């Protein structure tokens, strides 16, 4: 048969129809676990995934299951999840997520598998070994949504050489911190007294420890507490030290920019998560390897109350058709042996108590940090941002008074507006 225009169109039409039907036809029925030859892990870029990558070949050899790893920047990660899971995507199995940011929203959307029974059933693996605060952090409304991968606490990074030269002691209270920052602030020679996050949304999590140490919190008894006296005092303090002793352009700084200043020796103090310690101890990127030291979060009027949170959690995509294989991988990657190995090889702040009790693993951390971790097991606060479903929106509200304070504007007015907005959000999310 010769190819005519007519035949060409017929063939094209049939082909297109076939492809369309194939695409619409859905997948094959759920696979049996023994059929699984590969799984896909989606994660943000974090120390856990960086350390684990080296061991993935071993997992494939031991189990015959190849692990594909997709890593994204932290902000892109949530966009990826929202796009994929809105379309009920089953092409990835393990999802590493920021429990504080998305757990409530994802759980209500039905995107995260409930693993409560699974964590309790694995007696050899040891759910009880995970620190209590870490276990609580991944539990929302009595449902366990994943396994903690690492923990982090607020810590003070400081330049011991500068403090010694000025004859000052390491600050133990927020007043002493302010005085020390003032004494070491020397903008003429490019030295800032203190560097912290000043970008509205990014600063919220680091502002939290100040808020708690002044005796406040984002919410109290299910209502917004952003215009309490404690909150206004905390806003005032945070903005004042950055305005007077902070670097230029601080309202554009997230942790990347602020930590870069400290790593380049251009700030005397830097307060942020202790999981960043490795960046200051890396000679290729830090000029303060010899001069950096660590101190616990200073005490405010209500004592020293830093946050201690689980930044990353491994859960299971509820649309995945390889959920058992995904769970098996998670238990391997969060086993006592693996997390302790990652802690000693990659300074991953392990969520397991046994890792911190292991002298070799704890020895990979600077002594100051280990002391800080052990010292802050009690008295810490297990969240570092408002506990609502729409965390991103709440962070924007909470962040606005921080900016007003840095700019020297009316803090109580900004706090009142933020309080109203957060309350509106809490009311809108309340079950009807």
């Amino acid at each position: 048969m010769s190819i005519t225009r007519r035949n060409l169109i017929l063939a094209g039409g049939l082909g297109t129809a076939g492809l369309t039907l194939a695409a619409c036809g859905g997948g094959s029925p759920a696979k049996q676990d023994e059929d699984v030859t590969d799984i896909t892990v989606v994660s943000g870029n974090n120390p856990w995934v960086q350390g684990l990558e080296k061991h993935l070949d071993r997992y494939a050899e031991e189990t015959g299951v190849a692990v594909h790893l997709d890593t994204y920047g932290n902000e892109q990660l949530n966009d990826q999840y929202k796009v994929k899971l809105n379309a009920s995507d089953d092409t990835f199995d393990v999802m590493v997520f920021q429990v504080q940011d998305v757990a409530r929203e994802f759980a209500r959307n039905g995107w995260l598998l409930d693993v409560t029974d699974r964590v309790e059933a694995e007696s050899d693996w040891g759910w009880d070994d995970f620190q209590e605060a870490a276990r609580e952090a991944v539990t929302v409304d009595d449902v366990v949504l994943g396994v903690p991968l690492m923990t982090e606490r607020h810590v003070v990074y400081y330049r011991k050489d500068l403090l010694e030269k000025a004859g000052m002691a390491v600050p133990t209270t927020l007043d002493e911190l302010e005085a020390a920052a003032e004494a070491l602030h020397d903008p003429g020679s490019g030295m800032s007294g203190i560097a912290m996050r000043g970008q509205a949304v990014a600063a919220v999590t680091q502002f939290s420890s100040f808020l708690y140490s002044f005796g406040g919190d984002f919410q109290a008894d299910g209502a917004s507490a952003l215009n309490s006296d404690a909150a206004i005092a905390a806003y005032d303090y945070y903005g004042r030290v950055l305005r007077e002793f902070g670097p230029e352009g601080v309202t554009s700084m997230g942790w990347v920019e602020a930590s870069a200043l400290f790593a380049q020796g251009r700030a005397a103090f830097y307060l942020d998560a202790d999981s960043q310690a490795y960046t200051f101890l890396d000679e290729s990127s830090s000029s303060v390897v010899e001069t950096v030291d660590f101190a616990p979060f200073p005490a405010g009027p209500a004592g020293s109350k830093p946050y201690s949170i689980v930044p990353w959690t491994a859960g299971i995509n509820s649309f995945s058709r390889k959920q058992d294989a995904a769970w098996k991988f998670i238990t391997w990657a969060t086993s006592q042996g693996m997390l302790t190995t990652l802690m000693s090889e990659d300074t991953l702040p392990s969520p397991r108590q046994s890792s911190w009790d292991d002298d070799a693993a704890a020895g990979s951390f600077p002594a100051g940090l280990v002391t800080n971790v052990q010292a802050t097991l009690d008295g810490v606060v297990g969240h570092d941002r408002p506990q609502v479903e729409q965390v991103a929106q709440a962070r924007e509200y909470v962040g606005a008074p921080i900016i007003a304070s840095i700019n020297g504007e009316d803090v109580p007015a900004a706090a009142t507006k933020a309080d109203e907005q957060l309350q509106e959000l809490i009311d809108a999310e309340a079950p009807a």
Partner: protein
Amino acid sequence: MITGTAPAGAEPDAAHLSAPGPVFRPEDHRPERRRGLRDRLGSWIDRHLKVLFIAPSVAYIATMIAFPILYTVYLSLTNSQGAVTRPFDMVGLENYTHWLTDTDRFWPATWRTIYYTALALALEMVFGLAIALLLRKSFRGQGIVRAAILAPLVATPVAIGMMWMLLLEPNIGIVNHMLGNLSLPRLGFLTSPGQALTTLALIDVWQWTPMVALILLAGLSSLPDEPYEAASVDGASRLQQFWYVTLPMLWPTMAAAMMLRAVDALKSFDVIYATKGRGGGSEHEVETLNILAYGQSFEFSQYGRASALLMIFLMLIVAALAVIHILRKAGQQ
């Protein structure tokens, strides 16, 4: 009286014989079905050939453009949030009235979008035309110059954002270092709420002026020589030639370049997002409509609100194109 009829089977009469009888045609005796399958479809295809050839592109446009727009219109009338698979209600035009009465975020974002576009567009047209006029005459090293001005065009927007962020960083950036060496005041650039949007518009100018110059250069090289000859015979100066000959003849090309750049500048996203992140900075100082819509959908999961915002944004783009189109017509007359 005897009446009778011819018996059955009687010979036909002469009249019948002489008339042309029914001729045997094979196709009349083919089963009806066989004929339908091939020929009927075939003749249908022949009759609808034009439609069939454009059908794939129509199907593509329907799935890739029409469906998303219609779905966005639908979502914009609902209170969908969290996930599109969650139950939601129709709320009519509530999302539209929310935005049009929002003086906190929507209207500032609209003015920022217009300011950014107008500033970038004006400077790009002026500089683009100047560069095109300079490059019009051949000179030594012309190829190198043409290639060099194209460099910003080929760079990735996110890389451009990062590069400018480093250059303009107020504490360790080289630009402020140089300003300091020249005893000039240091500037906040991207970090200063008052300067960030203008800085971003200037980065857009840096990146896209070469493209405008290229388009205008192509337009210039297609202009006929006769009007210039006539103008010089009439004693027109170089400036008069430019104003009365070059500009009117180049106007259609300029309008096309403006249209391309206006759409691009209105929907600018990548460099703004790369340099200032979500929400357009701590005080939303560079939050354009695109950044606002992105935040509403990807950060806040407010799909109804975000859809309404995008529909309003679409109308703004259509309005801007209409204005340029009217200008183009007016210029041609």
